[in-house]
């Protein structure tokens, strides 16, 4: 029996590790997920059940999943399933490559997903839906043009905090590539509100009854107002199409014919972990997402509800423990007791809120890799180094000016507060870059180009240098050349960020084969401080036409 297991593990080990060979196979492209499919059934994720499933069932499954442990031990984590040959994500109903693929103009950053100017505040707003219970009451309105919006408020004592966070995060998530609703800051006077016919509210027991003026007054009494009675709100435009409920961060939606890749293995959802850490979006539960069946006949997947991001927790400033600690973390509990209380924890701090419009948002002690989400997230838990590096690229794609432009859209009345938010976002961005660009070599943007004399070269970007995190002078690169899996040139140091392919003394070493093409593999490494400590290689695969001596990029393998 032992022999059988030995054979099995041997076989499975070979099978798992076969990716570490030198052949390069272009990953197959996932099917188009924007094809017309029958409308899936609308569903509502039961929050309590979802929490138990994540905390209890999800933990059990991860403990019992021996193959996952085996993968971790063997250093072969399951990679995202929807990446291309260059480890980038395909455009889909989930994600559209935007700023990281091509720098967006400041105007586009400012516009974000917006197609209009928000609700018309010169006419009547008719309330057609309302929520009176809970910590963040609100309602939905139809303006004089017939456009529908969800109206969200700032809590008393913290003007601009929740609404500002909603807008800034909307702009940044959109520019990163995620689908988000059109969110607008607007100011209105309560006198333009009218209760629509048949609007109901639920009481604590879930019983419905007709909403009355007192209910509306109760809502408005609980929100921040300007001295003249004007109220600043976020108006979130109803998404075009039919909402069919939230998506989960694990499995697929079985009745959506386009949804074939398990969500926990989608690169954009795994990489969201880094974006979410940057923007303090700790509450990435299913209910903060929305699937919408578009008129075109497919489902688009949205991130929604960013009122609890940055320094805002919706109805109060973000508590200091958010992002730094989960609910009663066992290791922290042991540490507290074991140190006899000398170890103090973030939630014990009394946060100093310098800017009520920002809330509690700091870069001090921000550790993106240890950022804690309120609940386990299957996609985040499955994220590999490659996914997180990709997520960091999204974050690092934002320039200081773009961040400033996004913050401007929050329309903060205190310029000092807005500048503080900009500064904190930049600092957190750079912390992310420094961490993840040191975890994997940030060599990217590979291109084959021609020099003036017509010879070919492979050029790349060192994103840490490009983004100003590291100095080019302190960095050195080297590469190894393999042709048909045979090393023909070892450890050649580079003077620039280009490998001159035509000049490589390898032409005469090309192993003979019958093909007109040969497979070149360049293993590129960097040494950041010229200390002799080289990173793991980024493997770049090229096809050389042996007749024309032209090169074609096939793809890369970035080792975790």
């Amino acid at each position: 029996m032992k022999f059988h297991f030995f054979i099995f593990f041997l076989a499975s080990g070979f099978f798992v590790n076969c990716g570490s060979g030198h052949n390069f196979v272009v990953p197959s492209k996932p099917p188009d997920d924007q094809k017309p499919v029958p409308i899936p059934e609308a569903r509502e994720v039961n929050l309590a059940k979802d929490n138990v499933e994540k905390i209890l069932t999800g933990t059990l499954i991860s403990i019992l999943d021996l193959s996952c442990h085996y993968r971790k031990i063997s250093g072969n984590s399951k990679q995202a399933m929807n990446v291309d040959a260059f480890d980038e994500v395909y455009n889909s109903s989930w994600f559209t490559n935007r700023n990281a693929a091509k720098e967006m103009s400041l105007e586009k950053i400012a516009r974000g997903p917006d197609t209009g100017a928000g609700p018309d505040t010169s006419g009547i707003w008719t309330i057609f839906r309302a929520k009176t219970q809970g910590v963040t009451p609100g309602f939905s309105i139809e303006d004089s043009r017939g456009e529908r919006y969800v109206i969200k408020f700032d809590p008393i004592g913290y003007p601009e905090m929740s609404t500002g966070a909603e807008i800034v995060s909307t702009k940044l998530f959109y520019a990163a590539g995620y689908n988000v609703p059109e969110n607008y800051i607007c100011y209105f006077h309560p006198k333009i509100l009218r209760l629509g016919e048949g609007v109901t509210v639920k009481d604590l027991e879930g019983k419905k009854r007709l909403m009355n003026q007192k209910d509306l007054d109760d809502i408005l009494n609980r929100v921040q107002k300007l001295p003249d009675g004007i109220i600043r709100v976020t108006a979130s435009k109803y998404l075009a199409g039919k909402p069919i409920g939230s998506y989960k961060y694990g499995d697929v939606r079985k009745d959506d014919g386009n949804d074939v890749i398990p969500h926990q293995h989608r690169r954009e959802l795994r990489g969201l972990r880094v974006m979410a850490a940057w923007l303090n979006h700790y509450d990435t539960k299913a209910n903060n997402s929305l699937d919408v069946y578009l008129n075109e006949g497919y489902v688009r997947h949205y991130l929604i509800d960013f009122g609890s991001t940055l320094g805002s927790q919706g109805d109060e400033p973000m508590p200091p423990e958010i992002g730094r600690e989960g609910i009663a973390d066992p290791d922290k509990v042991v540490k507290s007791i074991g140190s006899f209380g000398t170890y103090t924890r973030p939630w014990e701090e009394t946060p100093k809120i310098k800017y009520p419009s920002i809330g509690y948002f700091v870069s001090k002690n921000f550790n993106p890799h240890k950022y804690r989400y309120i609940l386990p997230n299957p996609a985040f838990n499955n994220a590999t180094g490659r996914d997180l590096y990709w997520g960091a690229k999204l974050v690092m794609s934002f320039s200081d000016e773009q961040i400033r432009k996004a913050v401007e859209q929050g329309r903060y009345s205190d310029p000092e507060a807005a500048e503080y938010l900009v500064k904190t976002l930049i600092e957190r961005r750079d912390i992310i870059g420094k961490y993840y660009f040191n975890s994997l070599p940030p060599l990217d943007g590979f291109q084959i180009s021609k020099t003036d004399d017509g010879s070919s070269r492979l050029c790349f970007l060192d994103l840490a240098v490009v983004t100003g995190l590291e100095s080019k002078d302190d960095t050195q690169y080297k590469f190894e050349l393999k042709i048909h899996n045979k090393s023909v040139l070892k450890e050649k140091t580079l003077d620039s960020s280009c490998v001159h392919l035509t000049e490589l003394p390898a032409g005469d070493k090309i192993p003979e084969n019958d093909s007109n093409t040969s497979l070149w593999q360049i293993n590129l490494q960097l040494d950041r401080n010229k200390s002799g400590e080289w990173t793991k290689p980024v493997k770049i695969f090229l096809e050389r036409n042996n007749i024309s001596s032209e090169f074609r990029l096939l793809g890369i393998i970035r080792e975790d």
Partner: protein
Amino acid sequence: MTNCGFNYYFHIKAALLLTFLILFSGITLHAQTQKTHLDSVSYWRNQYQNKESWEFFVSSPGTFFGTPLLFVSKFTGDVVGYIYEKRTIPKIKALITSDDGKRGGVPKYSDRSGFGLKIYQQDISNPQSELTLTAQLGLHKRQRYRVELERLNFFGGPLLTDFTAQYRYLPNESFYGIGPETTVEDRSAYNREWFDTWLNFSIFKARKLTFHTRFGFEINSIFEPQTSNYSSIKDVYDSETLPGLETGIKLARIQFDFRFNSLVRPGEPISGNESLIYGGYYQQIDGRDYNFWEAGLDITQYINIFRNRVLIIRFAGEAKREKDDKTIPFYRLSNIGVRETVRGYTRGRFFDRDMAMVSIEYRIPLWHSIDSALFFDTGQVSKNIFKERTIKNLEYGVGMGFRLWNPDRLIATFQFAVSPERVRFYFVWN
């Protein structure tokens, strides 16, 4: 999905694995004819399966042994989800809670009295007044019923009146004998039925200092125990050797106490002092056997060391004395071993006329409204604590616990304590 290349070695490895699967797992492999359905959803889902075949196989032992646990967790999720969806808890709360919040009910549990429910109605005669009805049931017919009318202000001013009546049935209580040198082998058992009622008058002085006068009446009966694991107390002793073994002993009492309370955050104090000095006189009503007095003090100081790490030092002592040639029923003697004294012993482990104890507890915040506590208790009983100035019979227990609280009250505690004799767990939900 790994980047497996389709090379020669790959096929050998794959063949090896597949052969193994066929031979040893009994899995029948289906021909991949489904690939013809390139556009089908199932085809693509097969292409992007969460797990590859070998992963399913490797995980199968975990899946097999973990299935019962997963079933339980799934079931738990379904139940929690159903309760949430149907808003069961708000509905129950609404059912027993009045709209103005003055009437309501809360669950209770203690290892001494069992599970139960406390129903309250505030604002009976004055805004501070409250009527509470408590019923608790535990194993072996353990029972406790209690009616309390608290903080009635009949006379105006700072004088408040409380009235309490309770019935308790405590089966299989332990008794080891009187004195500090009893051993665990001396254990016997009894059932105790106890009806107690009292009228209490309180005078507040500057809120921190209160003076209480209490008039009480109680009926006590001792019965054979339900357990056969230990000797019956009535087989070991008779009423000559152990006072209080009879049934229906009626005692009247008058008690006085001064209380000082300067606690900050009463639900889980972070600083301040809580002190009690008391005295009482007990007289049997329908006989002349029992007549005694008691006096005691209980001082607790809370010291906030830093960031709500609180050191709690408590000293308590009690003395009981017979009057003339009368005696004290054994269950009214001072004792050590209950949760409020030295933790880690069987309840009622040590009885004698006097008792003194010291407790040091250190509380550390673990999360919002959850603290942990490390404690050390020590104390002893003696016949006369003023004459027997020895500590050779000191009992001690150490332990730790967790406390769930809100600013106004302690909601639950879970503690475990270790003494030289045993380990004890305590759980209280209030």
